[in-house]
């Protein structure tokens, strides 16, 4: 079994009356791409700042690489890389100088540092922009520079706090591919986002957060198993009577039927042949219907079912 890279126990952080982290627990194992999923204000960034020993907390314990984390634990910090949500680079330094500056805070040997900086630039695809100043870079390239500054020193643990906010799709894909590649090279990644598609795409394990609490944790399959919905069947129906809706609701595995704006949404719990049974019923009762499609549950459904609200509310 892999060792725990991060272990958080009963972490409580209050901002006056507001409880930002409420007895929060988390354990992240070596080699994972761990997703922290939650809406804005759910406590993701606060958790990260506590892990990094930037923020004081009221109660609990934070361990990194098996040791309690503290501001002066330089040997632990040496193996951590951070990509902040806001771009944090010097506007007066070029792309190369920025990466060199931040890498230099970790790597003292000049030759090694030079090699690492060049590798980081290659990795994020900024080789052609080496002598550019950050103000001359597009939003996507700036994000890539932000990432390069955080990972150039080849850390074992990389924390990425919403690195794709306000990024174009091309740069977003490049960033996501890069994260997977870093993981393949041996880095453990903590990835926070409120974009469930991204988390679903790259994370091996996910924790769903809201109001400073860890609501659910597991692989995406495990999370989806936790909820009642197995599949949602959507149909375009011009007209349907209430008695038909009631009869559909009585079909096996169907637990919720909703008809709104000529669209019929049928939620089924886990089970086989749900779609066939619904189609049979529609044909038998001669109810005209148009496009039909079935959806497997998403993390948003998981979040919705656990918290009663949409992830982006």
């Amino acid at each position: 079994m892999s060792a725990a890279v991060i272990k958080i126990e009963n972490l409580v952080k209050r901002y006056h009356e507001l409880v930002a982290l409420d007895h929060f627990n988390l354990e992240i194992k070596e080699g994972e791409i761990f997703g922290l999923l939650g809406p804005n204000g759910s406590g993701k960034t606060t958790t990260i700042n506590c892990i990094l020993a930037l923020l004081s907390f009221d109660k609990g314990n934070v361990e990194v690489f098996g040791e309690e984390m503290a501001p002066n634990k330089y040997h632990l910090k040496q193996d951590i890389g951070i990509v902040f949500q806001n771009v944090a680079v010097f506007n007066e330094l070029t792309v190369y100088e920025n990466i060199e500056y931040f890498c230099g805070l970790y790597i003292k040997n000049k030759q090694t540092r030079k090699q690492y900086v060049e590798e980081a630039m290659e990795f994020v695809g900024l080789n052609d922009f080496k002598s550019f100043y950050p103000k001359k870079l597009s939003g996507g390239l700036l994000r890539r520079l932000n990432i390069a500054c955080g990972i150039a020193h080849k850390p074992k643990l990389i924390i990425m706090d919403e690195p794709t906010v306000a990024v174009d799709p091309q740069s977003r894909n490049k960033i996501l591919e890069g994260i997977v590649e870093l993981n393949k090279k041996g880095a453990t990644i903590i990835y926070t986002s409120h974009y469930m598609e991204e988390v679903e795409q790259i994370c091996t394990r996910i924790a769903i957060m809201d109001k400073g609490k860890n609501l659910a944790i597991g692989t995406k399959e495990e999370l989806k198993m936790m909820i009642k919905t197995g599949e949602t069947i959507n149909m375009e129906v011009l007209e349907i009577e209430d008695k038909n809706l009631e009869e559909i609701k009585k079909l096996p595995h169907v637990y919720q039927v909703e008809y709104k704006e000529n669209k019929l949404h049928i939620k089924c719990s886990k089970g086989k042949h749900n779609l066939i049974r619904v189609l049979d019923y529609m044909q038998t009762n001669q109810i005209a219907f148009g496009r039909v499609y079935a959806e497997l549950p998403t993390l948003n459904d998981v979040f919705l079912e656990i918290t009663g609200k949409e992830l982006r509310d």
Partner: protein
Amino acid sequence: MFVRLFQYKVKRLFRTKDELFWCLVFPLILGTFFYMSFGGFQDKQETFQAINIGYITTETGKDEDFDQVLMLLSKDGKDQIVRIKTTKEEEAKKLLLDKKIAGIIYNTLEVTLTVNGEGINESILNSFLNQYIQKRETFTKIAQISPDKLNEVLELEFKDSSYLQEIRFTNASIDPMTSYYYALIAMTCLYGCFAGLSSAIDIKANMSTLASRRLVAPTNKMKIILGDFFGAVFVQFICTLITVCYIIFVLKVDMGQKINYLMLTAFVGSLIGVTTGLFIGSIGRQSENVKSAIVLAGTMVECFLSGLMVGNMKDIVERHAPIINRINPATLIVDSLYSLDIYDTYDRYMRNMISMLILATILCIGSFLAIRRERYASI
């Protein structure tokens, strides 16, 4: 590591346009404006131009003594007070109307003066004539009443003709306008506060993400602070030296011969400028813009009180609230430069330097205490 951080701070500051404008370009522009404004004034102060007059006299009835006095005063040379342009009345009147001469002195039955307007030259002529007439009457009366006392009175007159005595402490030639350049140098030094402010903001995780990124690195916080701090002092010192060189070598303002001490003052001044910014940046949670405004306003007030806008402001403050002059960094810098120029001894200069170093130390300690905290309550 320290050297690397120092180098990067220097590089960053020299590439910051705002920083360079306030710390280098603005003082050079202001110095040039001072030069353009004071240049003409200084020239007028230095050379007195003889006053052009018309002198109308008649052979009979004229005051022979006055005639002699006027001839003496109109003699070519450095002591020449008046220049007689004409002795013809018609021509003199025309020249007076054309403002080519300041006045017409008539030495006929009476000594009289005709002027066309008011001005310094007209006042000098008027004063000279009044004084002559007054003295002539006095001596004539004494000669009539007690002729035996005349010589004694004349001796006293010449003896007490000057009521002021100049006591020189130094051989330096003091130009009153130089105090403006002193205040300009003080302002340049104190503009180091911007570099100090940015140093503080770049190390406070609750003020910038950049600071967070630097603080999560395995580098001692004090090393980062000191690298930034000394980088800022170095850049400010260079900017101040360039300003001083511009004033001395381009504007040709006499700053005395004590160049080493002048450089020391520039260094300590830059140090106190940067520490002021560092201190303001370290305390409180106001935004960077608010802190920049505080720093700028504070610097301008300090410079105003040291005489940047009103030359004798330092003396006014000294009369009404001397304590302000003891703690105002701008005044301390101005007074250091002034005392270097005025006195041959260094007592007053050293007192100012020590005051500045104490202030810088207090601000430094305050800043480091505020910044050194290890974790933040909120970010």
